[in-house]
């Protein structure tokens, strides 16, 4: 299996462990990830909060590059990047917008690139195939946290169910884990306010952690670097607002799968978390 790969900025910086675990799991499953050459930032929340054309042009350049480099399909592990690329692709079905963006980019853009997230990559790879390679079942009770960007807007992403999604739960069950019905599966963690409005992030992420912890989760499983950093790196600030501190770790779905496949904690970047991971 060979597929294009767009890591995005977070995965080269504050969320390196996500990148490391994606690469490690891909290697273990013999998926050949071909990193997009000379990729740029997708613009994230900042671009579409500030300027529409910019918010379309940045992702469009990424997709145009992929087309230029002959990629038919790319996997985008970062939920924010995935969302921006998919939404842009949808928006550019509008011909005037497409013309304008082509003019800005000075690059041809076809718009037929297939964009998938990590969960879709693993699903496509096949749960049976994953099952066959498990060496240490991931026997933990966890809360799968999807956040916003992976499932919404449903009309465009068409991924899983918008309320109570199940694809991550299904993967966890495949590797031997137990998942739970909980209340904050798709509630926002505060996203891009991590730096600018830490107070709000602390409040929202706190609610999420509390519900998971109340229901006895041993860990939160995520597929978005923003969610992970808010729930993990901001833990100190969050715990200050809670009656009793919460120490459950927040790990990426690829790290959970990596563990089940017998990949070492270091290789999966588990040492990089603020909240110690002992699973």
């Amino acid at each position, binding site marked *: 299996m060979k597929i294009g790969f767009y890591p995005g*900025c*977070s995965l*080269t*910086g*504050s*969320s*390196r462990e996500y990148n490391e675990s994606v690469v490690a799991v891909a290697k273990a499953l013999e998926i050949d990830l071909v990193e997009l050459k*000379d*990729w*740029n*930032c997708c*613009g*994230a*929340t*900042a*671009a*579409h*909060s*500030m*300027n*529409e*054309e*910019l*918010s379309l*042009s*940045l992702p469009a*350049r990424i997709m145009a590059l992929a087309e230029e480099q002959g990629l038919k399909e790319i996997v985008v592990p970062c939920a924010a990047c995935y969302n921006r690329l998919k939404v842009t692709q949808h928006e550019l079905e509008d011909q005037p917008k497409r013309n304008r963006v082509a*003019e*800005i*980019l*000075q690059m041809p853009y076809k718009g037929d690139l297939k964009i998938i997230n990590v969960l879709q990559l693993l699903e496509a790879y096949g749960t049976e195939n994953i099952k066959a390679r498990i060496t240490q079942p991931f026997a933990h009770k966890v809360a799968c946290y999807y956040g*916003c960007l992976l*499932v*919404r*807007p*449903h*009309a465009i992403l068409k991924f899983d169910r*918008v*309320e109570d999604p199940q694809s991550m739960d299904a993967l966890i069950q495949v590797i031997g884990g137990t998942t739970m019905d909980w209340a904050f599966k*798709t*509630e*926002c963690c*505060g*996203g*891009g*306010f991590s*730096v*600018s*409005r*830490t107070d*709000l992030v602390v409040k*929202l992420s706190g609610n999420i952690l509390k519900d998971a912890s109340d229901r006895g989760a041993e860990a939160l499983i995520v597929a978005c670097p923003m969610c992970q950093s808010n729930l993990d*790196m*901001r833990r*100190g600030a969050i715990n200050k607002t809670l009656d009793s501190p919460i120490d459950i770790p927040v790990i990426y779905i690829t790290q959970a799968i990596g563990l089940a496949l017998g990949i070492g904690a270091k290789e999966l970047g588990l*040492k*990089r*978390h*603020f909240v110690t991971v002992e699973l």
Partner: protein
Amino acid sequence: MDKKHKVSDLQSHTGVEVMRCYQCGKCTAGCVLASDMNYPPSYLMRLLQTGTKENYDKILHSNSIWLCLNCENCLGRCPMEIDIPKMMDYLRTRSISENKMHPDSKPIIAFHRSFLDSIKHTGRLYEVGLIAAFKSRTFRFAQDLNIAPMMYLKGKLHLLPEKIKDRRHMKRIFAQTIENAKTETK
């Protein structure tokens, strides 16, 4: 739609038809930050429906548009499928161009600007640079002093920016879009 609702060109820019809203409040009921906003989303829709300049200005001056996280819970549940997040994007740009930003927007805009600056110069996000730029914009020098060293220790911070090769392309994109927008203020 009659002229009364022409105070903004919201519909022509975003396709959002405010008159579709029948004020059920489901957006507000599920909004994670509604309680922090001057006007929760359903209230904001009603203000827009009145179509008056006065109420439109209220919105542009409010913190609501800046606190919206674009988490899209509202859109996912809206029985009329009104794209509130898209509308918020638009209202933010209007607020900037008419220079009516709520004080709460300062750190948020500062962050967005720092973020975009970083991309403009390197093509990718340079987190250390971003934080430094953000701090100098907001004078919040003490913020996150506790987590930065930890991040460094955990290998989460690059001290040098990663740069893409075709940085001129980036500059050109910025020049043609956000810097080209007549409405943009410094």
